């Protein structure tokens, strides 16, 4: 066993010890008074209506997935926009690259649109 692993093991032991001690202390010292009201779901003080696990349209997943996709695209825009002006003086490479990137995602967008992914009804 390499010697370098000893600090990690020591850290692991300390972490387990501290967490275990905290759990044990809260178990021994913490008051517990369960009751009907206390164990009921927290709905900002209102009476809970129905179950939390309701059924909702599967379209939400599609919309969420598309959102993540195009959200990431937007994230790539920011660093690009920051260095755009500086790198444009060195040639139009940065512009062509981004146009290709947008075009690829635009194809996906048009495809999703045509297939009715953005259609709610």
């Amino acid at each position: 066993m390499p010697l370098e692993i000893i600090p990690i093991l020591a850290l692991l032991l300390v972490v387990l010890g501290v967490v275990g001690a905290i759990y044990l202390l809260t178990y021994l010292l913490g008051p517990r008074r369960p009751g009907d009201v206390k164990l009921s779901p927290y709905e900002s003080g209102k009476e809970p209506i129905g179950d939390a696990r309701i059924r909702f349209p599967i379209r939400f997943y599609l919309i969420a997935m598309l959102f993540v996709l195009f959200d990431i695209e937007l994230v790539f825009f920011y660093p690009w926009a920051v260095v755009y002006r500086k790198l444009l003086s060195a040639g139009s490479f940065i512009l062509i690259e981004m146009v290709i990137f947008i075009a690829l995602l635009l194809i996906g967008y048009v495809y999703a649109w045509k297939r009715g992914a953005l259609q709610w009804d």
Partner: protein
Amino acid sequence: MGLESSLRDSVFTTRLDAFINWGRKNSLWPMPFGTACCAIEFMCVLGPKFDMGRFGAEAMRFSPRQSDMMIVSGRVSIKMMPVLQKIYRQMAEPKWVISMGACASTGGVFDTYSTIQGIDRFIPVDVYVPGCPPRPETVIDAVIKLQKKIESERSRDYR
């Protein structure tokens, strides 16, 4: 509760009380119940100028499961009282209540049929804060008073 009930009043448990209370008083997690203008005033208590975090009470939690100091700021109507009561009952022990401002403590200027004339008619209150609305320093003073109160508590005394 666990340990004290079996050990009675020995030196060990009294020192343990001091230790537990030290931990409790320095890590009060507020549960804001803001219904009116006092809540607006309460916001700046946590802001950088007054900074309740200096007293260990900056971890605001909007869930009764995670907080132990309820701060009722603002007038409470009869319709709202069951909500306040339910949230109070959903908080885990130990728990304390600060009644902030004249309206929460006494009904204030709202001497009407629809306003609760003091929340202590329905839930126990530990510290009352005068003012309409109270200055942030007054709220911090209330927290310090509550800390002094917690210091003198025995851990089996909690409500």
